[in-house]
Structure formats: structure tokens, C-alpha cells
């Protein structure tokens, strides 16, 4: 291996690692706030990527239809749950949350898609289409289970992953798609060509982390979300609705997933089921951080990216095996350092 290959692998690893880091952040956030281990996080990545690729082709993406499916189901669940206390006021609120956003977004998508506005507006549109599915998913699958154990929530999350992958196949078909790069220009640093897309990924990752930091540190809503994560009962006692925190966390997670999808769509061909493996690599990182530490999760994500890059160089067909077997030593260390009492659940 020469220096160029080494640098290339490093760049590749850090670029992928940045994506895994974003996903790991979302996973830690969602787990802390709702105790849901968000297995379908990867599907948001797929949705984001395929949406951008379709917009590139000037077509209305299948996710527009999916958004309507999600919103309709969420609305149905909400109406059923409130069937005894449906008032005009409540109906108006439901319309505002479950009818208006998908309607506006879908109309917008139908109108803008044929115009082919260029990579960045299309990327933003893709994120706008996918993000609302997060809170709707929470409303449909997880809010009714908010008092259930982590284990039950995890099984439900796997169920959601199963359904969402199938729906993706239905709306996008089995063929893989690839999008145009967001930034086409690149430059060379010494012997190494640095692609504009890598730069975009780094910038997006750093920008998002900064935005999250400010959101959680400075705004009352961000603090409420943190408070829910620290002490759910305490948060409820000051009037923070669990459902609100949950939907907010899922909104952020879906947006991060869609953003990640938009960022990788130009780099790799994405199939209807690609997201699962990408999301799981975010998991490996999140688990290294014990599902609680943001900084450790980010560092571990970059580590996962690097291991993957080097594994694909030396033993490409065993790449996935190596990455997922990484979790065993991590769990082993966790189990050896775990206290010998088991007081949870």
C-alpha cells in the first residue's frame, strides 16, 4: 500500500464515518428521549437518497405517495384514539398536523419536480418530503407503546423496519438509483484528489452537530427534549408532553436520516434495502457510546468508517462481516465492565 492509497482510504473512511456519525447522533437522541432503538433509521436514509435521485430525473418521487400513506395512517390512529372527545378545535389541530403539511409538501413536490431546480434545492425538497414521516411513524407505531419496555419497543422498531423496506420496494421498485453530486468541483491536496461531495459531507456533518448543540443548549424546546431524556416523569411533571418530545425526536431523526441519504446518494448506488446496513453501522457506533454518549458515538462512527474502508481494501468480500463482528468485542468490553447487579427491567 502506498501513501496515495492510504490517504484515499483515510478520506473514504472519514467521509463514510461522518455519515455514520450523523446517524449515531440521531439514534442516541431517539433512544434517550423515547427509549426506542430506531432500527428503521436506515430506511429514512434510503428514502432521502432515492427521493433525490428521482428529483434529479425530474420525476415526482415515490416518497410523496409514501408521505400521504404515513400521514393518513397517523391521522387514522389519532382520530381513533380521540374518538370520544373529537371537537371542532381538536379536528382543526389534527388537520394542521396531519393534513396540511403533507398536502403542501406533495403539491410543492409535484410542482417543483419537473423544473429540476438543481442539486441543493432538490436536496432540501427531498429532506422536506421525508422528515415529516418521522413524527408520523412515532404516532403510528410507538406512541401507543410509550409505557412499554425497551424490548417491546425494539421489536416494534424491527417491525417498522420490515414494513418500511417493503413499502420502499413498492414505491421505488427493485432497481438502484444514484443522484448527481451536490458539488461537482473538487481539488487536489498533494497527491490526493478531494471531491466536492466529501467536502459537502464534512460541512453538513459539522454544521448539523453545531445546530444540534445550539438547539439543545439554548432553546427551551431543546432543553425540554434533554429533560425528557434525563427524567421522563420529571419532564411530564413540568408539563412537557411525552408525545411532543417523541415526535420532535423522531422529526430530528428522520431529517438527519434524509440528510444522510441526500449526502450519499451521489456517492453510491442506493437500493430499496440499502439503508438497513448503513443504519446498522451507525448503531455499532451508538452502542460503543452505550447509547448515551454523543461524543463517543461520533468518534466511534469515524472509527467504523475507517475500519470499513481498510477492510474493503484488504478483504472486500468480508467487509460487512468484519464491521458487524466489531460489535462483539464492544459488547464484550461492556459486559466485563458492567456491574454484577441487574436492576433494569
Amino acid at each position, binding site marked *: 500500500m502506498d501513501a496515495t492509497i492510504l490517504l484515499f482510504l483515510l478520506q473514504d473512511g472519514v467521509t463514510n464515518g461522518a455519515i455514520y456519525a450523523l446517524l449515531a447522533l440521531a439514534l442516541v437522541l431517539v433512544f434517550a428521549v423515547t427509549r426506542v432503538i430506531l432500527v428503521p433509521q436506515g430506511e429514512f436514509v434510503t428514502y432521502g437518497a432515492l427521493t433525490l435521485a428521482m428529483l434529479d430525473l425530474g420525476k415526482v418521487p415515490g416518497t410523496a405517495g409514501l408521505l400521504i400513506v404515513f400521514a393518513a395512517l397517523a391521522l387514522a390512529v389519532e382520530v381513533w384514539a380521540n374518538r370520544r372527545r373529537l371537537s371542532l378545535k381538536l379536528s382543526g389541530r389534527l388537520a394542521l398536523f396531519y393534513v396540511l403539511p403533507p398536502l403542501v409538501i406533495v403539491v410543492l413536490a409535484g410542482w417543483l419536480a419537473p423544473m429540476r431546480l438543481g442539486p441543493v434545492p432538490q436536496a432540501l425538497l427531498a429532506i422536506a418530503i421525508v422528515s415529516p414521516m418521522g413524527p408520523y411513524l412515532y404516532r403510528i407505531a410507538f406512541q401507543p407503546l410509550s409505557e412499554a419496555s425497551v424490548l417491546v419497543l425494539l421489536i416494534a422498531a424491527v417491525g417498522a423496519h420490515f414494513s418500511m423496506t417493503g413499502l420502499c420496494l413498492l414505491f421505488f421498485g427493485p432497481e438502484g438509483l444514484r443522484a448527481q453530486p451536490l458539488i461537482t468541483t473538487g481539488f487536489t491536496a498533494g497527491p490526493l484528489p478531494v471531491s466536492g461531495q466529501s467536502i459537502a459531507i464534512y460541512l453538513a456533518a459539522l454544521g448539523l452537530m453545531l445546530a444540534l448543540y445550539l438547539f439543545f443548549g439554548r432553546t427551551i424546546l431543546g*432543553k425540554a427534549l434533554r429533560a425528557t431524556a434525563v427524567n421522563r416523569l420529571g419532564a411530564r411533571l*413540568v408539563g412537557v408532553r411525552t408525545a411532543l418530545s417523541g415526535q420532535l425526536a423522531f422529526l430530528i431523526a428522520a431529517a438527519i436520516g434524509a440528510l444522510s441519504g441526500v449526502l450519499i446518494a451521489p456517492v453510491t448506488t442506493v437500493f430499496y434495502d440499502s439503508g438497513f446496513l448503513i443504519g446498522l453501522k451507525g448503531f455499532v457506533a451508538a452502542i460503543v457510546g452505550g447509547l448515551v454518549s454523543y461524543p463517543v458515538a461520533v468518534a466511534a462512527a469515524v472509527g467504523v468508517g475507517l475500519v470499513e474502508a481498510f477492510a474493503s481494501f484488504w478483504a472486500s468480500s468480508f467487509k460487512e462481516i468484519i464491521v458487524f463482528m466489531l460489535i462483539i468485542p464492544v459488547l464484550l468490553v461492556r459486559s466485563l465492565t458492567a456491574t454484577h447487579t441487574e436492576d433494569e427491567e
Partner: protein
Amino acid sequence: MSAPILVLEAISVAYGKVEAVRGVSLSMLPGSIVTVIGANGAGKTTLLNAAMGLLPANGRLTFGGTALHDHSIEERVALGMALVPERRELFGSMTVEDNLVLGGFRTAAAERAQSLAQVFARFPRLEERRRQLAGTLSGGERQMLAMGRALMGRPRLLMLDEPSLGLAPLIVRDIFEIIVGLRKTGVSILLVEQNARAALQIADHAYVMELGEITAHGPAAELAADPQIVASYLGLGAAAD
């Protein structure tokens, strides 16, 4: 005479098939301190939790004229109820100030700043420690923070569950003085205490709970003089007489 702020009628709470609270009725006037005393496991905490909506209960519950049935905790907070639970339930890894600010989550930003100043005036200790993490506070400070956080929401009814729990006698005295001071601001206080002697000293009216039922109630001073209550609940000292 004004209408009662809180009325419980025939409240029952069951864990599975076990009834922890059976047919409890209680009513309190606005601006008063009412205490519920009783042994460990008598159902006092269960009763408070049911009033706050943490547990489903049978019976009728009215707060400030509003009948509560399937109101969630958050809706009860919005109506002006606040509970300081036995375990305090603070946000341990957040600062004292963030804990307090979150107490005013449902109020407007300007009002929140005003409330914060008032709470700091009432609890100068909390202002000294405003940047400290709540998890690092001492037991007495934690209780003060929990009360301060509840006050940030400007409640009309403050329910306190064992505020003296695990605190040294000197600090218990401080906490009870603060409770007496709070009453002067017009907030009604429902106080659940094992430290029956202290609770009876500051309360206007008292209820005695035993095995999930109310076995006696009346003006606090009368109960404090009742020899049977003294024997059962005023503890060791009485037994030594």
C-alpha cells in the same frame, strides 16, 4: 366561604388486583395547608400520584371546579396543579437554572424570567448554585430545587410528597418554614408526611391514612392532641411515655 380547590370523592386505586387506596374522600380550601399522615405503605404516595394523574383511579376528582377524569399529567399541570414527588425527579445532568427554567416550560418567556427571579429570592441557595448540575446538590438543596421547579409553573395547588424524607432535622426545619411561607403567597398545599409531628404543626387540616383508607380527619391541632393518634403516629417518644 370559598369553594374548595381540590375535592376527592371515593377515590380508589388498584395495582393489579390489589387496592392500595380504597374509597378516600378529601377536600381542601384554597390557601390552606392540608396534610395526609400515616405509616409507610398506607397509600399516601399512591393517593397523591392518583391526584396528579400518574396512576389511573376510580372515583371523582375535582380541581378548581373542573372535573378531572382522563386528563393527562400535562393537562393537570396546565390547570395549575403541581406535584413534588417523593423521589424529586430532578434533571440530574442539567444545571440548577435549566431545571428551574424547565419548570416554567408552559409559561411565556417573559413570565419565566420573572418567576425565576422570585424563586431565587425565596431560595437564595439555588441562586448561588445556578450553574451547578442538579445531580451534585445535597439532599436539602435537591428538595428546594424540586419545590422551586414546581413553583416556576405558578401552580394554584402544590402537592408535596414527603418533603422531609432523608433530610437532617435542621434542614427539615428550613423546609417546613418555607412551606409556611409559601402559604402566604396564596398557593394551596397538600402535604404528605411520615414526620407526623412536624406536619401537624404547620397544617390547618389533617387526614390520617391507614391501609389505604382514611381513618380520621379534622383540624390539625385536634388530631395532634388525640391520644390514639399520638400513640400510633407520633412515634417513639410517645411510646416511651
